């Protein structure tokens, strides 16, 4: 593994940023990209009431002015956090003095049989799953053992009884594929409005999500520009406070906002809470010895090694998600 930095203990201080400078740099970049590079009239931002979309929307308004920012609220019927997301999205929009456009994507999801397909996949392992049931998929902890992280589905009956079942490959892929309709439908809606307004679409991933493939290809992974993809999630929170994102949004724990049972991002994807993941990612990028990171996090070196391994594993998977289309031969074009 890497060498200790030998420069003193690792701490969360390594992730501190100069927020004023960071905001100014991003705002200038937004202007350059949107107005000069793409020659678009403004930006579309899908807002979820979460920290990332709130920061992106706020930076876009600061860069371009509220008149050039179109905010979309895109709830769907069954996500456990839909009401909270919509309320916080509206709170953000009020703070920016923008009237958001509401696009309920539930009818589209019904039309693509998103819910029916997902439910059929769950029934492969929980035959009694049906109307009135709620569900989420979860992974075991990565720090607590060397176990392979295999997804299970947790389903809750209308009576409140919970059943947990390990997912077989077809069921797992079926659930993910069906659920991905949600992110892809939202992106389709964003591009509809971008096309009719001649705007660009802003993506909202932070570095942790971008690096680790926590997005849907062709869904929230698709955008014309991604103004906070270079910031660790902890840094996005710092920036949020500095640029005046409402406190209720800054204080909201990250969720996936995807499944009908409440689901944290650690349950679904990451090994640790975001601030600890950030530090591990930062440290791994610099070859820091796991023991040194462990000391900062109250974990053993072995536990951090497991996180490092999980980071590598996710990066391998993410390379497909990041990949642009590949061609079978050189494209004929004008020579320079």
């Amino acid at each position, binding site marked *: 593994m890497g060498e200790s930095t030998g420069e003193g203990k690792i701490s969360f201080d390594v992730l501190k940023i100069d927020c004023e400078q960071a905001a100014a740099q991003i705002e200038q970049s937004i202007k350059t990209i949107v107005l000069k590079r793409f020659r678009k009239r403004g930006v579309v931002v899908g807002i979820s009431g979460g920290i990332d979309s709130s920061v992106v929307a706020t930076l876009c308004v600061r860069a371009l002015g509220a008149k050039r920012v179109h905010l979309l609220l895109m709830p769907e019927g069954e996500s456990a956090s839909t009401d909270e997301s919509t309320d916080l999205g509206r709170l953000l929009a009020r703070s920016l003095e923008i009237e958001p456009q509401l696009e309920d994507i539930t009818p589209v999801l019904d039309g693509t049989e998103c819910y029916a397909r997902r439910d059929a996949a769950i029934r492969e392992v929980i035959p009694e799953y049906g109307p009135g049931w709620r569900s989420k998929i979860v992974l*075991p902890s990565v720090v607590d*053992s*060397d*176990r*392979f*992280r*295999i*997804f299970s589905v947790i389903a809750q009956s209308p009576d409140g009884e919970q059943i947990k079942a*390990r*997912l*077989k*490959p077809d069921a*797992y*892929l079926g659930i993910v594929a069906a659920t991905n309709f949600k992110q892809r439908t939202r992106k389709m809606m964003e591009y509809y409005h971008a096309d009719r307004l001649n705007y660009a679409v802003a993506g909202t991933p932070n570095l942790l999500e971008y690096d680790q493939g926590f997005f849907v290809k062709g869904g929230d992974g698709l955008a014309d520009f991604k103004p906070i993809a270079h910031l660790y999630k902890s840094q996005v929170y710092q920036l949020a406070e500095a640029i005046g994102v409402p406190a209720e949004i800054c204080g909201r724990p990250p969720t996936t906002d995807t499944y009908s049972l409440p689901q944290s991002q650690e349950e679904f994807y990451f090994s640790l809470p975001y601030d600890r993941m950030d530090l591990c990612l930062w440290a791994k990028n610099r070859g820091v010895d796991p023991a040194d990171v462990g000391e900062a996090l109250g974990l053993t070196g072995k536990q951090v090694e497991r996180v490092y*391994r999980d980071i*590598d*594993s996710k990066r*391998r*998977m993410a390379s497909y998600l990041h990949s642009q289309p590949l061609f079978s031969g050189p494209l004929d074009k004008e020579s320079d």
Partner: protein
Amino acid sequence: MSTNQIQKDVREYVIENLLMGDEEADFSDKQSFLDTGLVDSTGILEIINFLEDEYEIEIEDDEMVPENLDSVENIAAFVERKKNNNLGGQ
């Protein structure tokens, strides 16, 4: 069924189903799936499913560890142990 035969069957399964039939894939039976990225997390899920169906064993959550599943060789030894335990329990 001998461990050697299990090892051959598992190797064939990995090549056919996870490496898309790439007979020229250069990997040893000792090679770690995790460390080399030869098999991803969905692939491990497929391997578990294959082992349970093919060898009529039930793999418990706490058995899904690298010592048991992280290479063709480890898998073969694990399956052999499971089958011997099953026979011993009859």
